[in-house]
């Protein structure tokens, strides 16, 4: 019988704890497939961050370190500087990367720290039950913006890829999503490039994945994908913001 669907080797048998319809699962799978395709599971060390993806240390079948909230880029820096021939990646959410860990993120990027960053932007704090994230949209209702995000009080959302693309140390800054087969394929290519860049010692590579949080958005999985398409993509345009390999080719 032909196998049409199989679990990537770089995922363990531990069942995901993610909510139904949450796109974390898809992104995990893409990362694991890329690790398999590059044959690097034995050399890879992942850094789990604080948030819904904290348990990712149970899911990826490579060595894993769980970092304090926001500190994954610093932990990854310590790992990479000690293990320059290994592959180090972080898996971070928006609160972790763009709020409490923004300093670590910007400085890892500007140092050109040779690591791979998978950034899940779902415009909300998932694990703590749906509070405003640095990427929550203007007007977005969350537990801590019950009347909608008022930018005159709570400020404006951060566009991470745009911001990091201004830094010389950033090798790749690409925003993708996983709402369709086509976009999943683009996302996987981007993730693969982010890992290959590290192997080729190109510097800091970040793939921002616009993701859903049906649970805290209060929507069904289908509605959540629609909300992402109608609200997030217009505010956070998909695309490549920086790619040193393309610059070289050009």
């Amino acid at each position: 019988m032909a196998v049409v669907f199989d679990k990537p080797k770089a995922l363990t048998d531990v069942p995901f704890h993610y909510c139904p319809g949450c796109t974390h699962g898809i992104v995990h799978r893409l990362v694991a497939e890329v690790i398999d395709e590059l044959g690097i599971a034995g050399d890879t060390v992942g850094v789990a961050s604080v948030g819904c993806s904290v348990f990712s240390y149970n899911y990826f079948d490579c060595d894993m370190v769980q970092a304090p909230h926001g500190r994954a880029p610093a932990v990854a820096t310590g790992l990479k500087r000690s293990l320059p021939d290994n592959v180090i990646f972080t898996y971070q959410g928006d609160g972790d990367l763009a709020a409490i860990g923004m300093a670590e993120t910007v400085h890892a990027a500007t140092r050109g720290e040779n690591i791979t960053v998978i950034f899940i932007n779902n415009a909300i704090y998932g694990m703590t039950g749906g509070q405003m994230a640095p990427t929550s949209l203007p007007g977005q209702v969350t537990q801590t913006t019950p009347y909608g995000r008022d930018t005159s009080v709570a400020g404006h959302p951060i566009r991470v890829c745009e911001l990091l693309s201004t830094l010389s140390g950033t090798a790749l800054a690409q925003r993708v999503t996983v709402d369709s087969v086509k976009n999943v394929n683009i996302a996987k290519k981007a993730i693969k490039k982010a890992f290959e860049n590290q192997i080729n010692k190109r510097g800091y590579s970040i793939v921002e994945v616009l993701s859903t949080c049906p649970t805290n958005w209060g929507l069904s999985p289908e509605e959540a994908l629609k909300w992402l398409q109608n609200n997030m993509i217009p505010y956070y345009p998909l695309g490549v913001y920086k790619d040193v390999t393309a610059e070289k080719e050009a």
Partner: protein
Amino acid sequence: MGEKVLMKGNEALAEAAIQAGCRHYFGYPITPQTEIAAYMSKRMPKVGGCFLQAESEVAAINMVLGASSAGVRAMTSSSSPGISLKSEGVSYIAGSDLPALIINVQRGGPGLGGIQPSQSDYWQATKALGHGDFQLFVLAPSTIQEMVDFVSLGYEVGEKYRIPTMILSDGMLGQMMEPVEFPEAKETAQAEKTWATNGHKNKRKKNIINSLYIEPQVLEDLVKERFERYEKIKATEQRAEEYLVDDADIVVVAFGASARVSRNAVNMAREAGIKAGLIRPITLWPFPENTIKKAVSHTKDFLCVEMNMGQMVDDVRLCVEGKSEVSFFGRTGGMIPTPEEVFNEIKKLSEKEAK
């Protein structure tokens, strides 16, 4: 042994770390420890090591967390306000059972405080360098030679028991110069770190370095297991120096820089015919309870001398259990007690006893 060289405390400590096999230093500038970072930035490239000036103390300690996870000997150094910033990372390091070397060259506090020597981080170092149930192995050097010797000791004990080590120094020891001898360069046999996250190479099960345990029973069991290790450390790693203690009526208890001052005061007291002695805790955690308890039978008065408002004195009282008098003398804010001041306190106690 090699020959003696005249070195500043901070630089001697940094060199000792390199000789102990530390090749990963992460730090952030702060007075009065900056010479450590400056020295490391000069030496690390020469020995193929990594010096990295982090964007913050918070980042620096987490870089240490990453490097220690990789299984290498890593280190960071700072001074009081910077150590407060590191406390989150220290708690995670302890909760992840990682060894790591953290240096605090103390200055006056609280807040931005001052930049002169102090010992006011004793409580922080020994009781609560971060949230949760945990301890660090805390060493208090009182000479530049000890700044050197305690580096490899700190690594060895930390790696054996998988706990972070702090060398609690101060601005005086950091800045002053003394002749030091570096131990004969030896390939320090480091215990194999089978727990390190350095890539499983498809040859072993994956390693996870983690401090998150959602199940209370699991977390309690892990914390209890860690405390069993702490009991072993208490049983085997207590260190203190005793100076003229055997026949002493009055025993001064002081560590680090204040012990240097107190030793002179004890000498002055002996010259004046007062039977004074000095107990100098070398490990602040585990606190050298045994040494203090042993002295209780013949000691009428214990006098704690510290460069703070009285912190270690609590631990001395716990050991003495009310069986002798315990008093305190201290200066704080960057002020250093003089031998005369301490001698006066000893004299007052001796006069009181004579009455």
